[in-house]
């Protein structure tokens, strides 16, 4: 059973490329998986299916590019206010976190909808999260700290929120560079274990947000709540697996 699932996912371009791989890990053959969920690819019924297959990725690509395009526009028309560097830092950081949570929402979405298409988006959405996180980091390094090495090092060591942010970025970086098909093949089983780190990375990013916010904590708490809900789906899955093995 497991090997069948593995093969299906490896062949289907839909399941292969993800930052947050949440496929059931190989845990031995005892585990049972409802077949209908995982037979991927062109399983969409009706006339809509081909159109959706073609348009899904480009549409999501454009949607996730919009926040960045708006930022460039806002910068040039002077919409970013009195402190544009701070505005860019906050904005790219928030979008990185939102898209990261969206990545983690795709597997639960598949479970709820019982459709395979959310999984086809995981790698792209994950790479978008990385893109915004990279923009966030570069804004900090180049524009905020202006490559002042000592100040940057002091920040990473002395300020827990920056330490957490650095950890989160390093994890996303590792996931992004191993997100290619080639890397996936080369790494085999270790790829799955590595990409499970997306949970740690998201946790670190959230901690970064909670710790840096002074005063009003409502916004970071909303993100934290969304993360907890998304993790509950994984817990459910884990619980199922445990009951199935025992």
């Amino acid at each position, binding site marked *: 059973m497991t090997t069948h699932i593995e093969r299906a996912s490896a062949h289907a371009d839909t399941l292969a490329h993800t930052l947050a791989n949440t496929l059931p890990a190989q845990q031995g053959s005892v585990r049972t998986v409802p077949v209908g969920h995982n037979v991927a690819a062109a399983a969409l019924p009706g006339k809509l299916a081909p159109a959706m297959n073609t348009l899904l990725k480009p549409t999501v690509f454009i949607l996730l590019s919009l926040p960045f395009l708006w930022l460039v526009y806002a*910068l*040039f*028309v*002077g*919409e*970013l*206010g*009195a*402190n*544009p*560097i*701070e505005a*860019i830092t906050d904005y790219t950081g928030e979008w990185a976190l939102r898209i990261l949570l969206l990545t983690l929402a795709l597997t639960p979405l598949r479970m709820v909808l019982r459709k395979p298409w959310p999984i086809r988006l995981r790698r792209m959405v994950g790479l978008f999260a990385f893109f915004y996180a990279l923009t966030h980091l570069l804004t900090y390094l180049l*524009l*905020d700290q*202006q490559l*002042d090495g000592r*100040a940057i090092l*002091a*920040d990473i060591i*002395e*300020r827990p*929120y920056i330490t957490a942010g650095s950890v989160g970025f390093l994890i996303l970086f590792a996931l992004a560079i191993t997100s290619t098909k080639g890397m996936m093949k080369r790494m085999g089983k270790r790829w799955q274990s590595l990409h499970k780190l997306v949970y740690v990375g998201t946790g670190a990013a959230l901690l970064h947000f909670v710790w*840096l916010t*002074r*005063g*009003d904590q*409502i916004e970071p708490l909303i993100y934290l709540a969304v993360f907890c809900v998304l993790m509950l789906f994984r817990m459910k899955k884990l619980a199922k697996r445990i009951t199935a093995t025992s």
Partner: protein
Amino acid sequence: MKDWMQIAGIKSSEITDETVFRRRRQLIQASMAAGITGFIGGEAVAKALPQPIKPWPDSAMDELTKEEMATSYNNFYELGTDKGDPVKNADKLVTEPWSVVIDGECDAPGKFTLEDILKPHDIEERIYRLRCVEAWSMVIPWNGFPLGDLLKRFKPNSKAKYVAFETINDPNLPGMKSRVLDWPYREGLRMDEAMHPLSLMAIGMYGNVIPSQNGAPLRLVVPWKYGYKSIKSIVRITFTEKQPPTSWNMSAPHEYGFFSNVNPDVSHPRWSQAKERRLAGDTSGLAALFSKKIESQFMNGYGDEVAELYADMDLTKFF
């Protein structure tokens, strides 16, 4: 500690035609750039603001922050925690009528209308650097009068060692529904700090009535301390014998001390205070991305004037 009356009496300044000329030119450029001719409201304040306003000879010579920037990027949590909130919610702050309660250790306490408060004072224009604890700074021409001149009128007695301030506490203000700080917003100064000639009561900026988002109709400006010490929209001034509680110190005592003097050598848990981003000049296009970050100065550059207030103190301990 020095006798505060003595300190208040000290004022040395030299006027040169050159500095006056440069300052005026800066001001005219700034107001033209802003394209703003005046703010509506604050009749009492408008009456008290002379035109033209007498310039102060010791004003900072740095490039001015544009008026539109200084009035749209504000930390005023009663009007919302986002820096763009206060200007959006400015109309929620009702500044007329306005009165200030003076109480505590003084011989002439009472409740005074804004007119009463402002009447005897000559308004002057002082350009100060404003350094926020968040590591950004502005250069703002304030219109006001020395705080010490105001405090003396209420005859503080020998027990008055500190002076406490309170911001308006109106539950209708949009930001006050959140429990982000323990309202009302409170600040305080040691008496010698309050009587120092640099401590200013402001009612205007850039020659206009101070807008709500900047602390209408009456706010404090203490240029050698982090911005949050310069309390906005003051409704109460209390002379105290003991050091009064202050809002950010109450909220996070290890981050915000009572004194809160600008000090690049004392790092804050969130922000290194060694440098600051000067918010002046371009805010759009590529130029905005490379706005200069400058070295922060001890006491925000006012060390020559105020260092003596802290002569015997360990500033890493009393931050």
